[in-house]
């Protein structure tokens, strides 16, 4: 009897734990870091400010201060003299498929699109991630400290995306950005209608796409209602009524309706984005960002009015009909909409592009200023730091060099808006993760190890 009692207590306890600790939660814990003083640097703080010849103090893995002649007041502090060099926040990519489309790009690593049904809200990109993808290290060497991995765009609703720290770990949980919200990948236009239309199933048209989203949200609204009505019952009532059966697909969509999961919407054409905004209003959710959005400039004010970011390329076009109307000023126009209240993000969607987001921002900035805007480099730096942090829901902890935020920092040899600028040192949570002067600091994935010559590593 006693044993049985204990067993049930244990079971109850496990159930409680099971509810509180979500499966696949981040297990990342920052290692203790030294106090570092970056002296005499030119700094873009990621909030739109430029400081020339200032110091940046990193303490306990956090940004402590930007100022003149800062003193560490710590004996074991590491000092870096950065005269003539530049410091920025760690670069953040809001649109990556690293880990789900790993290198080498072989069939066995093609894990980004669950293109077996137009709505797969039940899948999570993180369940596909290969921790040994050699692309992570390359991105780190390009200054990328944080990236958001999304499912592909084959489906109307492709599943959950996850934000990662660019750290080495043998588990996905060990790379996950702690407490970062999930996203939901949705896709407009040509891709879903091509994938399913070619199989003679819905959707095969853009109107089929819209019907597909709305049907899914109608189901999700009902599911959420059922869940809520069960949750609001008294403890006694709950004993009598069995809870509604959990549905993974509906869990994700209900999470969006509850505002816990952020919608990242692949969408190129202006009129389709406007449709998606109406669908979001119809069902009471918010679109966080339109991705790729080659035609965002045509509805820049509408996006600003609805507080939707444009996560964009500097100049990609022509690979599809919906990507035909590219203007290099797209990013600047989004930035300048409604008196500069727009949210512009430079994203990569590409393992090469992610390493050079600073160059992509430089192209977009130059195009914008040639068109008559007067955008500073300090402001444009937000496009690859604080704006993607905001769109990934992690702006409280990273994306700019503000006291108390994680010390995710990049040191560049030259102004980062130049093609000749190369990231020299990259810090995550105050820890030096990559130092160009020390070839052994390059993270070497298991894949890289001894693959060409047994005694060498691929990246050296």
């Amino acid at each position, binding site marked *: 009897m006693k044993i049985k009692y204990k067993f049930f207590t244990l079971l109850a306890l496990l159930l409680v734990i099971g509810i509180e600790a979500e499966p696949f939660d981040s297990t990342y814990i920052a290692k203790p870091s030294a106090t570092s003083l970056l002296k005499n640097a030119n700094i873009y703080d990621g909030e739109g400010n430029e400081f020339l010849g200032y110091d940046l103090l990193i303490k306990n893995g956090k940004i402590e201060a930007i100022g003149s002649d800062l003193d560490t007041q710590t004996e074991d502090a590491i000092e870096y003299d950065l005269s003539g060099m530049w410091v920025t926040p760690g670069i953040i990519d809001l649109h990556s498929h690293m880990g789900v489309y790993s*290198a*080498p*790009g*072989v069939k066995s690593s093609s894990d980004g699109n669950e293109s077996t049904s137009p709505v797969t809200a039940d899948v999570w990109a993180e369940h596909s991630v290969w921790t040994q993808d*050699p*692309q992570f290290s*390359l991105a780190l060497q390009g200054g990328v400290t944080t990236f958001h991995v999304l499912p592909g765009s084959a489906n109307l609703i492709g599943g959950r995306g996850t934000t990662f720290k660019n750290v080495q770990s043998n588990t996905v949980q060990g790379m996950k950005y702690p407490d970062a919200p999930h996203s939901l990948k949705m896709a407009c236009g*040509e891709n879903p209608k*091509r994938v399913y239309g070619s199989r003679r199933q819905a959707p095969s048209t853009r109107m089929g796409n819209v019907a597909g989203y709305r049907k899914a949200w109608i189901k999700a609204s009902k599911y959420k209602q059922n869940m809520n009505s069960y949750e609001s019952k008294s403890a006694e009532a709950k004993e009598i009524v069995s809870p509604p059966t959990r549905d993974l697909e509906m869990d994700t969509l209900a999470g969006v309706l509850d505002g816990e999961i952020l919608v990242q919407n692949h969408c190129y054409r202006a009129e389709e984005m406007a449709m998606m905004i109406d669908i979001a209003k119809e069902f009471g959710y918010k679109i966080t960002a339109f991705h790729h959005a080659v035609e965002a*400039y*045509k509805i*820049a*004010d509408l996006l600003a009015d609805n507080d939707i970011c444009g996560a964009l390329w500097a*100049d*990609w*076009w*022509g*690979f*599809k*009909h919906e990507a*035909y*109307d*590219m*203007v*290099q*000023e797209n990013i600047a*126009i989004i930035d*300048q*909409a409604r008196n500069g209240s727009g949210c512009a993000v430079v994203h990569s969607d590409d*393992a*090469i592009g992610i*390493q*050079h987001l600073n*160059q992509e921002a*430089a*192209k977009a*900035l*130059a*195009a914008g200023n*040639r*068109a*008559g805007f007067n955008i500073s480099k300090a402001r444009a730096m937000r496009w690859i730091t604080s704006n993607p942090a905001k769109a990934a829901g992690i702006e409280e902890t990273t994306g700019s060099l503000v006291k108390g935020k994680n010390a995710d920092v990049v040191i560049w040899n030259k102004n980062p*808006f*130049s*093609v*000749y*600028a*190369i990231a020299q040192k990259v810090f995550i949570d105050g820890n030096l993760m990559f130092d160009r002067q020390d070839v052994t600091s390059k993270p070497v994935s298991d894949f890289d190890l001894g*693959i*060409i010559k047994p005694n060498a590593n*691929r*990246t050296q």
Partner: protein
Amino acid sequence: MKYFKLLLSLLLIISIDTYGSDTLIKNGTIHTGDGTRAFIGDIYIKNGVINSIGNIDIEASTIIDATGKIITPGFIAPITAVGIIEIGSLDVTRDDEADYLNMGFSIFRAFNANSTLIPWNRSNGLTSVITLPQQASMPLAGMGSFFVLDGEMNVSGMKDMVMLGKIGASSGSRSEDLDIFENLIGLGKQVRNKNYEKVLESPMAEFFELHPQDIEALDKVANKNLPLIIETNRASDIKHLIDIKNKYDINLILAGVEDAPLVVDELKESGIPVIINPMDNIPNSFDELSSSLELAAILNKTGVTIMFDSSRSHNYYLMRQGAGNAVAYGMNYEDAISGLSKTVADVFGIKGRGSLVKGNFADVVIWESDPLEPASVPLYVLIEGKEMDLVTRSSRLKDRYIEKLIQN
């Protein structure tokens, strides 16, 4: 003001079009493209040709002040699909694939002088391109042509001036592909007095259902009358291709070569020029595990001749960004400029273009700043001395919507 500008540019175009008109570009920083250091000077253009370079004091119908500006030859992209693909995912706008022919396939007559890619790439500094067919499953695909990007319906360029091929990971074995490649070259060597029909009787020609045009093209490759670009990456493939070049004495150019650092001395020794994308450091396949951002610098220091390719379709001018990254990681700057211009002309036998020297066509670009900075754009693009309009479909869209944005 706008109309005034329009009127002015119209007048300018009319004046330049007039036969015998001349242009003097004053006081620019000139990179001639030949790999030597830039100098400050003037360029005098008459009848579409560079008449002289240096300190020139002469009256000209058009004078361009290039003080503080950079002058380069118009860049030549060696690997593009300009004029034969308008929209990648729309087959009806693509003419890059053959149904019937093999190596004899020519894309020349598919070239659309009104493609939006022409003004777009031209306004970003390309004055001519090599347009290639799509790589087929065969080791050798069809032939590419050279096109001047003046957008004229009377197309200037060089028809069927290069063949394209590929060796590497395939559905079968690369070893068989190398055998087939050698055998195809062998077929070309067999041709006597343009008697293609006779060679068609060989088992190889019959198996691949080759046509007289295919044999004709192979004849040219085998007898060094047609340069051959082979896309390849793995070190072992590069080595075998070097051997084949030496055995058959063909005009071989290698593209990709991401594993080249492993065989860099052999590559240098072979004299084979390469076309690389310096930004592609992704080990996309098991053929390119040595892929790195240092590739250009390693090849450059060894003395291998380098040209550039961009990773994205449509924006072929972005080979400038690749060249800029190559320089950032250690390639010589002037060699990078050459790689975008004179090297391409030299390697592919493009006469009268690619460098700013007396007697060459005046394909000239004047840049607002360093052309290897991808944010930099041309202020003037001249093709055969004629100032090109820098308006593009994209700039028209931009103007339309920026106006709307300001109105709101």
